[in-house]
């Protein structure tokens, strides 16, 4: 077992330069302000940039869809009697839980990227765009489903 220590295990093309990823920790901001859809899309893009494995990406997508469904169900079901539904709070909570999946699948690849001397890209513009576009689309979706 010990002697695979001295055989090469690093493939030549596996770590070629992609676009710099965002810090996975920072994705919590679009998660809280935008909701599950925003953080899922950003995390999937980031996973691609980090070269995350396919199962991990699928898990991320699954967590995102689950978060979205959970947000819709809880908004409709649990707070049904209350006139003033805490739509935003549930959205932020669902986004935060989806972010946990992003952090779990991307923390280690990002740490390795840092050790390779890589620097994170700025999440400012993409984060704000995702919050405004996807967050808004999701809110519209919630109200459409609630109104139906």
């Amino acid at each position, binding site marked *: 077992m*010990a002697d*695979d*220590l*001295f*055989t*090469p*295990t*690093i*493939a*030549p093309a*596996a*770590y070629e*330069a992609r676009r710099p990823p965002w810090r996975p*920790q920072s994705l*919590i*901001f679009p998660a*809280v*302000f935008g909701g599950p859809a925003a953080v899922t899309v950003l995390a999937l893009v980031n996973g691609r940039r980090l070269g995350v494995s396919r199962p991990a990406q699928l898990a991320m997508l699954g967590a995102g869809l689950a978060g979205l469904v959970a947000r819709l169900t809880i908004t409709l079901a649990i707070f049904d009697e209350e006139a003033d539904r805490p739509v935003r*709070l549930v959205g*932020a*909570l669902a986004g*935060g839980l989806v*972010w*946990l999946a992003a*952090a779990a699948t991307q*923390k*280690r*690849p990002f*740490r*390795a990227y*840092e*050790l*390779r*001397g890589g620097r994170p890209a*700025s999440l*400012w513009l993409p984060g704000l765009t995702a919050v405004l576009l996807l967050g808004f689309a999701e809110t519209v979706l919630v109200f459409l489903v609630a109104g139906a």
Partner: protein
Amino acid sequence: MTAPERQLARVAQLLEVNRPEQALTEVDRLPAPLATSPLAFRLRAGALTVLDRWDDVVAVARQGLAEHGPDAELLGRLGLALRHRREHALAERALLDALAIEPQHPWLLCQYADLCSAVGQTDKAERLVARAAAVAPEAPAVFAARFQLAYARGDDRAAERVAREFVGAWPGNPVALALHGVAAAQRGRVGTAHRAFGQAAAHDPTDADYADAAWETRVYAHPLLLPLRPLHRLGIFRTWLLAVGVIVLLTAAGLNLLGGLFALAWMLFCVWSWIAPPLVRRMVLGRWRS
């Protein structure tokens, strides 16, 4: 000892007292046969490594290997430099060639472990570090490799523990102090991180990275970012869960006004945590993002 040999010894001494630039000029002044001796190549590559001039390290190491054949130290330096140039597969080749010559060399084992950590192969890195630690448990390279392994695994507690052991074993070592700073910053101990980087810069004023890191932590030690300290200490998610919990509890207890005010304060805090760090960074460093 002949005069040229004395010169070589002097160069080695200059490297030991961390005067790499002077060592380089002295090596270049050596008479012809000595200037291309294996030892001269090692000293040159060593000095260039300290200066982080990776392209030059690669050139010098390759020239030395071409002239004198395989040499574990030159191959090791070549591997380290290639890693910094992000040529990971070539770096692995060089380090494996070096380890074929000296399979128990702790520094070489650690270099290979660092390379494995950097490409995410942490299990292999762990076995390499264990082997190096069995030979030289207190070597700075072993502490540094253990730190990088813990960091690559995302285990900040373990990284902090290793950094503390490192500083305990080598109190004045700038690398130990800098890693202690990195670990403290990861765990949200801003003041400790700032002090550690300051000490590292004081012990090695020639290294720009330590000075940069000390400046960088100055940003987070800024009074305007004082409200964000709990956020750094607890981590974003835990702070956020705590806040949501408080809001829900207050609302459930019927204290709607209090709950609303707290929610508003929390919202402002979130926005502050988003916009304040870049602003303070600009104020302190005079530029956006380093």
